[in-house]
């Protein structure tokens, strides 16, 4: 498997397998572009990523490497059941996404820019966790948002959403 170098915005280089790097669709298409332009045969391709800092790139690559490894294990010979594999991977993902909100922010932006579908999904789930279970006022406080409704409009919106609160209370009872 040939390797490539991913260069972060602050100039740090990371050597990774092309397979792991290609989990990023953005890197994949940049690689294709570089491949087409290259003339020598012995060269390692360098992909500059001016929008991802070293710290975040490390974290992203951790994900890519783990996920390519587990994919290889599945294709190579006798393995524990696929179901078990999947559960292990999910546990790994859960653990992986336990990061500070600040890291989570950089990670989601990087996952979006680098276009790593699985990682993006994981980040979205992590962010959804920050949003869940909050009242409108609580959401405003947590996320520094300002209510921009007129009073009558707010009241009418509140009324059309009352049913959900009733639903929630009943679910809580159960």
């Amino acid at each position: 498997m040939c390797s490539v170098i991913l260069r972060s915005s602050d100039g740090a280089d990371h050597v990774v397998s092309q397979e792991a790097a290609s989990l990023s669709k953005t890197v994949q298409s940049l690689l294709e572009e570089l491949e087409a332009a290259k003339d020598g045969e012995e060269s390692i391709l360098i992909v500059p990523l001016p929008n991802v800092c070293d710290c975040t790139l490390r974290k992203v690559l951790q994900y890519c490497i783990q996920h390519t490894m587990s994919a290889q294990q599945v294709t190579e010979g006798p393995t524990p059941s696929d179901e078990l594999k999947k559960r292990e991977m999910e546990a790994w993902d859960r653990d992986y996404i336990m990061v500070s909100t600040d890291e989570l922010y950089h990670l989601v932006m990087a996952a979006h820019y680098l276009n790593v579908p699985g990682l993006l999904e994981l980040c979205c789930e992590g962010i959804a966790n920050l949003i869940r279970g909050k009242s409108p006022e609580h959401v405003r406080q947590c996320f520094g948002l300002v209510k921009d409704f007129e009073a009558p409009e707010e009241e009418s919106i509140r009324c059309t959403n009352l049913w959900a609160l009733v639903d929630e209370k009943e679910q809580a009872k159960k």
Partner: protein
Amino acid sequence: MAASVMRPHRVLRSSGILLRNNKRLCTIEEQTSVVKLANTDASAFVFNLPDELLDDILPHVDSVDLCSLSQVCSRLNKLAEAPSRWEGLCAARWGPLTELQHAAAALAGSWKRLYRSKTETDKKAEQAQNLCPYEVDAAVQRLGCCAAPAGQSTIATFCIDGSGSMASEDFKVMTSFIATAMTGLLAMDINCKVAVVQFSNDVRVEVAPQHMQLDELKRQLDEMSRMNGGTNIALAIKQAGQLLKNEDADAARIIVLLTDGRVDTFQGREAVKMAERLADEQANVSIFALGVGRGVEKTEMQKIIGVCGADKVAARYIPLYTLDEAPW
């Protein structure tokens, strides 16, 4: 091994601006500065993310959270009320969405309203899968599509299963559907007669074909008592055929079977034969089958509908009120 990059400046240029789906996104640095201005709390970044990312995040939260978000501010209101969001929630909760549900969402005005209506219906029905009012209306519209054009008459014949396997609540669901259906059909300005036939081992004409006031129809439906016994659908279709024989030749004949379809192979074959004869002898026959009760045998019912054309089966079988368990 020397690392060499071919024309790196070209690559840098093409990747320097974040282009995805032909839209320019803010670079991370730009985004960060926005966050710092807005709030010192680290999680404040969430709603500074571009809408495109929030569209990926919001499918991860449930209906209660979406309702909460829509009350926060106008931007979140717009994001939380997006039709696709609620359509997604409906699909996640009630499986692949049917055409009937699409029609019901259109009648309701939004997927969110349909979600609410279905949630409330489910709560009332507990274990059973019940159509919510919008879905019932969509089903009635389907009946209406088979009605005759203006000026000609339509006869809606309801064959209601009064067999022992029907619980009294099932019976109530069926009679109230008849009332709702007639209300709907008359509201569509359809010149519509109604007939009601109850069947079990035997068959009874509850309402002979006639134009009837809704109040009177509802009264008669309320007074109807269940026959008990087996499920002889063939007999019901035969009776419907006899009632319809005397009507205008070019009138539209809508037959609605309300049953659990729990028949043995012989009874099933007889019912299909009888339906074939009816469709053969009389014009403009449309047969619908509405599943009601425990352990509904929809394949039997679909065979009966099939006599009017295999292409009609999908649209004309509607599970009205079903319980996914054995009847004993």
